[in-house]
């Protein structure tokens, strides 16, 4: 068990250290969510005037929840990129050959993803508050919102790390990122679910990300709805993608010999 913790600590430390010291990694992961926040909350605010748009805290808060979860997801995705890069550089191979408890590698990377989101998520939150976002929620709601973000981050990290271990090249970046991007944007990003029409409405109704997003919006507004369902779905996803990541690790182990 101590050996496991040792590997976890080492991998997580390296992951977050690399993030912090290299501007080419940290800047995009901070700038992207901010930029989406600016473009959506700023550029589309008129959408709040669409008849039946009924989110009380306003459009800034409405978009903040999306960007909050998006930054959580991209904390995971960017960690997947880092894993892929480690395979390209040969570092991951060395890690596989030398780590006494290999399961710790996944856990380490995933914790790295969480720490990474700790940075980007804080920046996004501070900027949103500074731009005058309404927060009607109580402390309990806010804590639940944070927990929701953490679980969301975990799901994305397990997916990205697992897939990176299957593909083992940086060129797979788009393959890791694209599905996350699509799932996120197939949730009610710009308007509440009930204002969506057409095929996107049909898809969004079934999209698990929709439940997380709607729950987050409810929590921020201080009027939580369907929270249990959202947490249940996220918990289920974690089990699923953890199994996937384990298989990714196996496949990488077989390749590393």
């Amino acid at each position, binding site marked *: 068990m101590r050996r496991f913790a040792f590997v976890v600590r080492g991998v997580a430390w390296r992951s977050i250290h690399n993030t912090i010291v290299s501007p*080419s990694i940290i800047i*995009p992961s901070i*700038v*992207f969510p901010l*930029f*989406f926040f*600016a*473009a959506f*909350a*700023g*550029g*589309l*605010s*008129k*959408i709040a*005037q*669409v*008849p039946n*748009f009924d989110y009380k805290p306003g459009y800034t808060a409405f978009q903040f929840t999306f960007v909050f979860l998006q930054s959580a997801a991209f904390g995971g995705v960017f960690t997947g990129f880092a894993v892929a890069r480690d395979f390209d550089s040969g570092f991951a191979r060395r890690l596989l050959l030398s780590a006494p408890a290999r399961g710790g590698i996944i856990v380490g990377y995933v914790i790295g993803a969480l720490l990474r989101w700790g940075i980007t998520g804080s920046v996004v939150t501070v900027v949103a508050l500074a731009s005058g976002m309404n927060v009607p929620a109580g402390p309990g709601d806010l804590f639940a919102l944070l927990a929701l973000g953490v679980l969301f981050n975990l799901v994305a990290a397990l997916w990205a790390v697992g897939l990176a271990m299957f593909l083992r090249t940086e060129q797979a970046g*788009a393959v890791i990122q*694209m599905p996350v991007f*699509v799932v996120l*944007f*197939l949730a*009610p*990003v*710009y*308007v509440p679910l009930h*204002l*969506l*029409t*057409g*095929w*996107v*409405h049909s898809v*969004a109704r079934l999209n698990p990300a929709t439940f997380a997003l709607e729950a987050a919006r409810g929590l921020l507004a201080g009027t939580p709805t369907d929270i249990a369902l959202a947490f249940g779905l996220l918990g289920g996803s974690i089990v699923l993608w953890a199994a996937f990541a384990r298989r990714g690790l196996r496949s990488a182990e077989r390749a590393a010999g």
Partner: protein
Amino acid sequence: MGAEHASVLEQIGAIARRSIVRTFRQRGLLVFPLLFPLILFAINGSALSAATRIPGFPPVSYRAFALAVPFMQGALFVAVTAGVDLARDIETGFFNRLALTPLRGGALLLGQLGGAFVVACVQAVVYLVVGVASGVGIASGAGGALVLLALSTLIAFGFAGLGTLVALRFGNGEAVQAVFPLFFVSLFLSSMALPRNLIKTPWFHDVATYNPVSYLIEGVRSLIITGWDGQALALGFGFAAALAIISLGASSLAMRSRMART
């Protein structure tokens, strides 16, 4: 002996041929740039349809309104491809090989953009076909569709000039990749998602007004949703031409100093 028998046109042709051949031998790399704008178009075209209910929104479907966006995103990808290709030539030293021939800098630049040009045309046709197939009518008709292709190719050319400029200045592909998000930002901070008069947040409205990308989009968009709108077209072609002239001009200056053989 190495007297100059080949004309400048032949030189441009030879470089362009290589650029095009290279592009098509790596067509796997084209799939993502082609697909990504279409996916966004498919999602946003529907997800933002509520925006049409904002008072003052033009009387068209949101999909028709959004069809201009893929052309712009495609142009951005063309810019990155052109820049990365050139940067790789600099990094590998292939550029030095060319610099030792009687080739002129301008010819090299134009030739290098040959691949970009072909990709830009192909992309524009695909976007147009997908748009029309998804039920968007082109208000300016068939002639307008041709003008649209011309405008979007000109825009792609202008952006490609920016890509080659970065490549020539910094000489490495990572710099080009790093600039890409900036291009993307310029697109998002424009009238991409809503007409400018419906952008409420003051700073955003100002940025979108001063952002030339807004006028490029509006030029393309006017052909799709308005018909023949002289002002929008003049602004669109004007800014596109200015972008192309400035970026290619700066590129050829950078090319001259990069090819600073004696």
